[in-house]
């Protein structure tokens, strides 16, 4: 029940592909010829299709979303006095780079979320209009409540007032339809280990054609070694050092598996309703955003701190959940739970029986106050 952190289980093919990759000769990313299979390029093609991107080479591959977000936030040409607009729903992978930018004179303005963790497009637009930022950052979905934001509308608002738009798809890619080119998104970060069903150590950044970031990380690329700077062409412009080839074999296997086995959204929604209705029926305080929503749910059990309840659920009942501020400290006041929440996050593999097990355990807690 912790898929919003790292999805589990994975399709069998993921582990098999990774095991094969470490046993055979390493590939030659950026160094091989036409006969070499370049797992990074294969993964890029699958990702481009999933993101609605026509040029796979605009996707730089690294180790996770945090890497991609750092490349975007520190690579974008911000200067002292510039404004960046973000939201209270951002994860620390965005917030901590922003705190550092503030130290160099960049102003950061945060748009509050509503009581379900969603950013209202009209409020976003008003704030963009008022502060005229150079860059806007939006969490596509709250990792605390699952509320999915209207990225297309908010990207349009950012562009209408001259700002670039960076989308954090850490929670959504693989679960929510994404059309980056159609929406006009300038940059978008993603990770492989959540709803893409891939392994940890995979993720990256899409950068729209026409944008050139100043690479945050520099180093060897296997090409143009005589240059003192990173080569200009994407994706190698942002890809310093040897990539995580075994994990990208795993991610590629996951992407292909997901393409062949699309998730049944109706079943996932039914499980979410079963969980939310059940928890509310027991007397829990449940955050229930309207659709569209990720299969993520935050709640508290009256009479228990979230930490206390989470420990009991895990230690006494083997229910793996996450408790606390969920690396999104700005959101807790907006959703009226300043002490944090218990978060359950489902996957396409979560069964009705597993939900019943959770509800039975929570009922035990509620009846033992």
């Amino acid at each position, binding site marked *: 029940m912790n898929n919003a952190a790292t999805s589990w289980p994975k399709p069998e093919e993921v582990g098999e592909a990774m095991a094969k990759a470490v046993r055979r000769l390493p590939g030659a990313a950026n160094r091989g010829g036409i006969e070499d299979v370049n797992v990074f390029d294969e993964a890029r093609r699958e990702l481009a299709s999933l993101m609605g991107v026509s040029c796979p080479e605009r996707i730089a591959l690294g180790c996770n979303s945090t890497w991609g977000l750092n490349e975007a936030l520190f690579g974008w040409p911000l200067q002292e006095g510039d404004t960046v607009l973000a939201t209270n729903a951002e994860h620390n992978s965005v917030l901590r780079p922003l705190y550092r930018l503030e130290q160099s004179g960049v102003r950061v303005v945060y748009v509050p979320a509503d009581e379900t963790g969603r950013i209202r497009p009209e409020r976003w637009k008003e704030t963009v209009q008022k502060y005229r930022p150079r860059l806007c950052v939006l969490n596509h979905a709250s990792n605390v409540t699952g509320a999915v934001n209207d990225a297309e509308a908010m990207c349009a608002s950012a562009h209408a007032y001259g700002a670039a738009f960076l989308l954090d798809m850490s929670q959504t890619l693989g679960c929510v339809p994404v059309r980056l080119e159609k929406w006009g998104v300038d940059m978008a970060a993603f990770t492989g280990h959540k709803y893409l069903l891939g392994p940890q150590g995979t993720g990256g950044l899409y950068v729209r054609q026409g944008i050139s970031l100043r690479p945050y990380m520099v180093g060897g690329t296997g090409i143009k070694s005589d240059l003192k700077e990173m080569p200009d062409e994407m994706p190698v412009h942002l890809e310093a050092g040897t990539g995580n080839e075994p994990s990208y074999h795993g991610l590629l296997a996951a992407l292909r598996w997901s393409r062949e086995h699309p998730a049944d959204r109706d079943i996932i929604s039914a499980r979410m309703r079963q969980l939310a209705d059940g928890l509310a029926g027991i007397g829990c305080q449940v955050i229930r955003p309207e659709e569209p929503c990720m299969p993520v749910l935050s709640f508290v059990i009256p009479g228990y701190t*979230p*930490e206390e309840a989470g*420990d*009991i659920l895990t*230690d*006494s*009942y083997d229910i793996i959940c*996450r*408790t*606390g*501020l*969920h*690396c999104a*400290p700005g959101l807790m006041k907006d959703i009226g739970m300043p*002490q*944090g929440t218990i978060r359950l996050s489902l996957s396409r593999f979560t069964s009705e029986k597993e939900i019943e097990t959770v509800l039975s*355990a929570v009922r*035990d*807690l509620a*009846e*033992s106050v």
Partner: protein
Amino acid sequence: MEFRCKKTENCFAGARTYEYELPVTGKELTRLLADWDIRENHRFRRPVFSARREGMEIKGILAARVVKVNFTEENWEEEKKGLERWLEETEA
């Protein structure tokens, strides 16, 4: 008694939480914690306990040998040293 200690992941503000692996169960530990406020709950699938004193809390499964300790934000280093000294000086 001998013990192993590890900081645990905890996303709460100001959390100072560590796990201790002990040579005794949680139940046996509670018998050694003479001046602590001890509570047990046997209604859960694996019964649990908590022991509280001056803002510190030791908790876990009664039948398990790993317990979790929450120290206070203000004085956690002193409390941690004190608990570990007490564990070292206490016979299992």
